[in-house]
């Protein structure tokens, strides 16, 4: 926000930069030279004053990154004791209530981590909480990127990497959730078994390959362990590195403000400001996750007991990020085809397997579809305010609404019991809501965006409300307005206008032409120079008494 300015000599900031009285050779010089002569350190570190812009919404991705680091650290601790084995043992640990109960080694070692290893339960809970946070932060970060248009050229590939991260993040979470082999996670695996079976043509084969035979078998937990601690974390690590490398290469987007353009970047240098801010933020995220692990119980597997295929707890729920799939599974009508000795379980395949495919495909292709509709081939480094892309924003909110409805439907039994309403009616309602609410959300969001555009225009033309009511000599009342700063007026008027594609410019298909016209339609045009001048002259009401500047006009 601030312009580089002279610092007062008294500023402590200057102290940092003032060389010591006796300069001499820097303490860093010796070791730095040693390393530089071997690996060219200076070349590697030429970027340490790289500029990063500041905004709270840019922290969301950081939370995801730090949660991942926390997951790696706590995960390593847990692997020291966890035994990924489905071999049955007679429990002999210190949790009295399960003494001599037959259970898998996986569950028994989870109990041992929880009750016999000092700090084990704490680390287990930190690990689970940061997994929840990891997926949540990725999701919210993705929404931030979506609604501000940060996915546009040249960042489409980084968006795709992000979609990849989110999708395998779900797999990672689910694999970890299944490892303790308690009643809840076993139920989750049973569900996945049914899900895999439902795939037309190859379902039974996929089931036998995943479980090494019939459910539950002996290998699924060792296999999920490999997936959870080696395969997926490796993929995540690679994709995160690529995500960060592209972020550095493209430089971060920034919010429009005076002096900020598509060709510059304004902010604080990486060293020392971002080292301190981002590094400090890592410790804050870690600290809060530790406190959550200490104070908020999560997944008390000893209460559920070992997995037993003939038992299930009422109100069983997956972790939150699988809730939308759960909801879809619950509300779909029972469509199943029985044809020529085969069974086609659309009631499981569509909401379970196809829905996830649909979600991630829609996310992946969106940037390309929008660019196709708008015909926009330019690079974008300035973020959109969501209101200035009303259709995109409305589409995003509609998507969130659909996700939210499915997610709510995943708790239809809880809703029914808590609010004492009929479970069947809740389910019927959600079947309709999942289609109707997104449409309503689209319409309402678009209207809100356009109203906000109009409010912006009013603010530029008529200034800021003062909350002061002025009575004119002839008895009329009006509210005094003061003009806004040029910087604010610039920020409110600089956004490019959406244009429909010229019909004859290229040979466009009818669909594309129609979509492009629809996409650009309805926006409130930014005020013209003439309109602004006219509005300024229109301010014929008496000047506000005591106003600082002579030209501070008052209008209504």
């Amino acid at each position: 926000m601030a312009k580089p300015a002279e610092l007062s000599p008294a500023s402590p900031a200057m102290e940092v930069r003032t060389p010591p009285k006796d300069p001499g050779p820097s303490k860093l010089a010796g070791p730095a030279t040693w390393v530089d002569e071997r690996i060219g350190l200076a070349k590697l570190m030429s970027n340490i004053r790289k500029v990063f812009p500041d905004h709270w919404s840019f922290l969301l991705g950081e939370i995801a990154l730090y949660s991942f680091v926390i997951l790696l650290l706590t995960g390593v601790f847990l692997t020291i004791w966890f035994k990924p084995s489905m071999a049955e043992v007679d429990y002999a640990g210190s949790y009295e209530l399960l003494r001599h109960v037959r259970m898998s080694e996986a569950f028994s070692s989870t109990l041992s981590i929880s009750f016999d290893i000092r700090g084990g339960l704490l680390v287990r809970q930190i690990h689970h909480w940061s997994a929840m946070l990891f997926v949540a932060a990725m999701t919210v970060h993705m929404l931030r990127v979506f609604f501000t248009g940060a996915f546009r050229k040249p960042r489409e590939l980084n968006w795709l990497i992000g979609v990849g991260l989110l999708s395998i993040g779900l797999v990672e979470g689910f694999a970890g959730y299944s490892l303790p082999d308690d009643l809840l996670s076993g139920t989750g695996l049973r569900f996945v078994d049914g899900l895999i079976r439902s795939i037309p043509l190859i379902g039974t084969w996929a089931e036998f390959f995943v479980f090494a035979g019939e459910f539950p078998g002996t290998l699924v937990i060792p296999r999920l362990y490999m997936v959870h601690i080696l395969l997926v974390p490796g993929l995540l690590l690679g994709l995160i590195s690529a995500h960060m490398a592209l972020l550095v290469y493209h430089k971060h987007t920034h919010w429009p403000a005076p002096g900020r353009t598509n060709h510059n970047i304004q902010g604080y240098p990486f060293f020392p400001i971002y080292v301190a801010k981002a590094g400090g933020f890592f410790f804050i995220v870690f600290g809060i996750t530790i406190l959550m692990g200490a104070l908020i119980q999560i997944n008390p597997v000893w209460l559920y007991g070992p997995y037993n295929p003939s038992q299930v707890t009422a109100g069983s729920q997956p972790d939150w990020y699988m809730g939308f799939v759960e909801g879809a599974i619950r509300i779909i009508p029972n469509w199943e085809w029985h044809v020529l000795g085969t069974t086609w379980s659309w009631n499981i395949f569509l909401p379970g397997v196809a829905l996830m495919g649909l979600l991630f495909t829609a996310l992946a292709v969106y940037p390309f579809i929008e660019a196709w509709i708008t015909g926009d081939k330019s690079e974008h480094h300035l973020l959109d305010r969501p209101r200035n892309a009303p259709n995109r924003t409305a589409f995003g909110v509609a998507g969130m609404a659909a996700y939210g409805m499915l997610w709510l439907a995943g708790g239809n039994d809880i809703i029914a019991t808590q609010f004492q309403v009929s479970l069947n009616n809740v389910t019927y309602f959600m079947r309709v809501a999942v289609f109707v609410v997104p449409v309503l959300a689209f319409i309402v969001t678009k209207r809100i965006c356009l109203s906000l555009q109009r409010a912006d225009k009013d603010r530029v033309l008529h200034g800021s409300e003062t909350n002061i009511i002025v009575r004119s000599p002839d008895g009329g009342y009006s509210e005094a307005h003061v003009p806004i700063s040029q910087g604010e007026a610039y920020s409110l008027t600089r956004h490019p206008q959406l244009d429909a594609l010229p019909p004859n410019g290229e040979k466009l298909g009818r669909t594309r032409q129609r979509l492009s016209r629809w996409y650009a339609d309805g926006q409130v045009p930014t005020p013209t120079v003439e309109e602004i001048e006219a509005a300024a002259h229109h301010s014929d009401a008496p000047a506000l008494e005591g106003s600082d500047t002579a030209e501070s006009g008052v209008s209504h």
Partner: protein
Amino acid sequence: MSEQKNLPVPDPGLEEHEHRFTDVNEAAADRAYRQIVGMLAAVPVLVLAFLFVYFGVPKDAELVLFGANLQMQTTLLGLTSGLATLMIGVAAIAWARSLMSDEEIVGERHGAASPPEARERVLADLETGIEASGIRRRKLLGTGMAGALGLIAVPALVSLADLGPWPTPALRAETIERTLWAEGVRLVNDVSYLPLKASDLEVGQLVNAVPETLEKIEDGTAFQQGKAKAAIIVVRMDPNSIKIPDSRKDWQINGILSYSKICTHVGCPISLWEQQTHHLLCPCHQSTFDLANSGVVVFGPAARSLPQLPITTDSEGYLVARSGFTVPVGPSYFERDSSKDFKEGDR
């Protein structure tokens, strides 16, 4: 979308830098400095406290906090290490925000694309390299190498064919299409393994049962696999208030019926019994089956009736199976012939 050349309001350029309070007031800066050092000084104290808790607090000690019983050791280990970590973070950010220079700097952006010269140079290099490889003159080198690289994936993929046994019709018949139930196998309580006597069941009662042969299975895997399919529920209803089709007249004894406990949707054990409506509700996805009507689906995502186990009594009056299940239990799979399942209206 077009970048407007003539903006209605010209860009006034970067805003004036505003000094922070700590920039202009030495006392405020000193205060911030003291606060930051204070936070860092709390870290060793908290670390010592952590060590004390780790070595000094017994594992079974409890801590009552706001009415909640917490494991004292876990909670205090977390509180001390969590606060210490938090202090480091807050101190670093306070340092950056109030004492480090807050002059913003401006950098330049360049297009993501390489400069045209660089692109041309790389293209020329590629051209030189391709020429030097000789692939243009000896074309089979290229196709041969591409084909070989593609084919070398085949052994890797085929090696995965042993991920699990192949579900051939013969194997399916031995595994997912077969349960422990057979003629004469007694129904026993799923916890005590005591046999169920028909005369002990009251109208309205539901019992979770398994075959008596389950208890004798030593192997843990076979036990779980067996239980995952053979679990049943036994209910007694008033014979006059339920519909019993002609074909299933002898599948029950005085209104005592037995059904698979494994949901035909995705295989959860169904266990919520509505005694008055004779409905059985699955707690996972709320599929509801009418046990008074041969287990047909009355609500929810399940598409097939709950398989019924034909039962009778033996000479001592204990419940036994007349045969195994007549259709595979559990969730659907592609090769399943679902034409034999009971449908509403079957006789």
